[in-house]
């Protein structure tokens, strides 16, 4: 084995070691989808997340108790080897599809560690909410 090969192998091993550092290993006792799962929305959100090398494990929409307001949960998973940071914004729409103006309509930065998941949660501002739109932006800051 030449010196070059040994050097290359060493660098590769070091990269693997560094990549494995901080990786989260996840398991769950839940083996079936959540009862409030919205499969169509999950596919659409997953298309967005794939562009920044993340993927969507689930989108849930339910009435939060005791407020009885609609709440959305989006589970984002990172199967890569580095922590990824992104900015997201969830906007609520009424039954007619019109935007509901709200002060909670802000961009939020979130990090998800390698191998880990993060659950984005957003509560509808009032009872007229029926749907939501989800915006995503790559962010390194």
């Amino acid at each position: 084995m030449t010196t070059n090969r040994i050097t290359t192998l060493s660098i590769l091993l070091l990269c693997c070691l560094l990549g494995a550092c901080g990786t989260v290993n996840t398991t769950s006792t839940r083996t079936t989808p959540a009862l409030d799962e919205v499969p169509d929305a999950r596919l659409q959100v997953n298309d967005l997340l794939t562009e920044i090398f993340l993927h969507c494990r689930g989108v849930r929409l339910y009435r939060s108790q005791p407020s009885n307001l609609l709440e959305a949960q989006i589970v984002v998973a990172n199967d890569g080897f580095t922590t990824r940071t992104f900015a997201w914004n969830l906007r609520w729409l009424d039954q007619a599809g019109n935007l509901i103006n709200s002060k909670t309509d802000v961009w939020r930065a979130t990090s998800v560690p390698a191998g880990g998941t993060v659950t984005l949660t957003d509560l509808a501002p009032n009872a007229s909410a029926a749907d939501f739109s989800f915006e995503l932006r790559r962010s390194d800051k």
Partner: protein
Amino acid sequence: MRFLPALLIVLFLTACNPARRIETGGPESITTTSQIDIQDVQDASATMIESLLRSGLFQKFAQDNGRKPILLFKDRAIINDTTTRLAMPLLTGDIKAELVNSGVVQLATTYAGVSGRPQDQDAAANARKKALRNQSSSDDATPDFSLTGTIVELSSRAGNTYQLDLQFQMTLTSWSNDLAQWTDTKKVSKQGDKPSVGL
């Protein structure tokens, strides 16, 4: 060679970053590790609004009493224990607006309290005048709840890397039993070696 001056001018002009308007708290905002920035404030206020609405306390009060609760929320009720000089209405303004405009509470603007200074002094004077004219008046703007809070920070450094950890905490106290009915915290952590643009 004769195009060099023109090329230099073009390069100079394109390197400039002229002042322009950006989306408040949007991805183009400046992120710093030395102080609270607008994104932290917006994130904290949005989290607090959602947490308060999620608790359902105001909705339950309305069902039990047949009227919307009256909330006292003064800008001075938030104690800023950080090194950032923060204009408190930046934080409280959004929370007040969302809670009042969504119709879950009424805001007490004429209640003076210990400071003796109501938020709306003209309306407070009018309320006093009405009370003097009609002693049996049932108009009572005594709050049912009050909101208070604190902002604290923790700065740390390792080599050239700076980290700022912030905690926004708010508490809702019921005036009927003088006990906290809701409290929540929002933590924000930022790390870097220099300020940058973006979320």
